[in-house]
């Protein structure tokens, strides 16, 4: 597992998801903090390409050795790509949460929602509130 980090080029939600903007698209994953809290991921139940996702609503589930938990969409849009590699290697979410452990790519339909997400420093400050 990589060391704790929160890259500056990403945006973050309070449900511990990250967003990487790529033109009209946005890539989602879960943060280092989230994967560490969940423990070893053993299964990823993900939406199909073409599915609609809604900000702050669950779009999939992750099973770890500790629990089955929802994964929340930080933005609204349509799924255009799913990280199929997670079907065989779900632990990529632990090993490289900001890289090969990405989860889905969406085409944003409400890009204005980006302004509601946190930057890396604000997310770290949010974590420190506990």
């Amino acid at each position, binding site marked *: 597992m990589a060391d704790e980090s929160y890259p500056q080029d990403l945006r973050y939600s*309070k*449900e*511990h998801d990250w967003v990487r903007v790529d033109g009209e698209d946005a890539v989602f994953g879960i943060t280092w*903090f*989230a994967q560490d*809290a*969940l*423990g*070893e991921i*053993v*299964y990823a*139940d993900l939406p199909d390409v073409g599915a609609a996702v809604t900000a702050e609503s*669950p779009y999939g*589930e992750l*099973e*770890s*050795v*500790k*629990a*089955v*938990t*929802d994964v929340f969409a930080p933005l609204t849009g349509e799924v255009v790509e799913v990280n199929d590699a997670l079907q065989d290697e779900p632990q990529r979410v632990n090993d490289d949460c900001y890289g090969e452990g990405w989860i889905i790519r969406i085409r944003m339909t409400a890009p204005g929602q980006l302004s509601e997400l946190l930057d890396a420093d604000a997310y770290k400050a*949010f*974590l420190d*509130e*506990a």
Partner: protein
Amino acid sequence: MSTVKVLPELRAGGGAQMALDAGLLLTADAVIARRYVWTPPALSLGKFQQYDPVPGVPFEVVRRPTGGRAVLHGEGFEWSFAVAFPPGALGAGPRAGIDVTTPYDIVAGAFAGALRDLGVTLDEGRAEPYQRSALCFAGALRQDILARGEKLVAIAQAKHEGRTLVHGSVLERRPPDELAQVAETLLGEPWRGEGLAGAGHALAPEAVWSRVLASLEISLRALAAD
């Protein structure tokens, strides 16, 4: 006043038992605990566990709302429990929503304490690969509750929209051969696990459960006082 709302023991089939636990995960508005008995016997599978249905299986096969591996349930060799936590019951703050350690530790700690109180010497934990077996009681993680190498309590968890369900199973003894052999055929692995009997104990479920409930009360009051 009790923090934990305790439901009466329910003796019912697998579909009803899992429907009730799934309902608790969706609607619990207080900490709710229940002990239950699967009658007739049934096999429960983890929510995403792979399974190829086979005709003629002499017991019900149901999905749990939680993860993990297969558990054979039935009166006389096993009993089950569930604890549901509503939003906010396990603390507040940015980490609470994704905290899967606290609910697990509260419930597992309650069972460990109850078993020790009743004279069971528990093993130190061990760490083994998660998917070593398709049968839950045949594999153990570091935090599982074991005695003399026998896994005594299986615990699984799900979180949904702020609620947490922790449920599980206490293996009293090896299931009857006619059930264990079908499970072996379905899952392609030999049955392993003798539970409490394998560790040299025969404990009344009510004695264990009453101690678990008492421990839950103490833990939740301490959490609320923090």
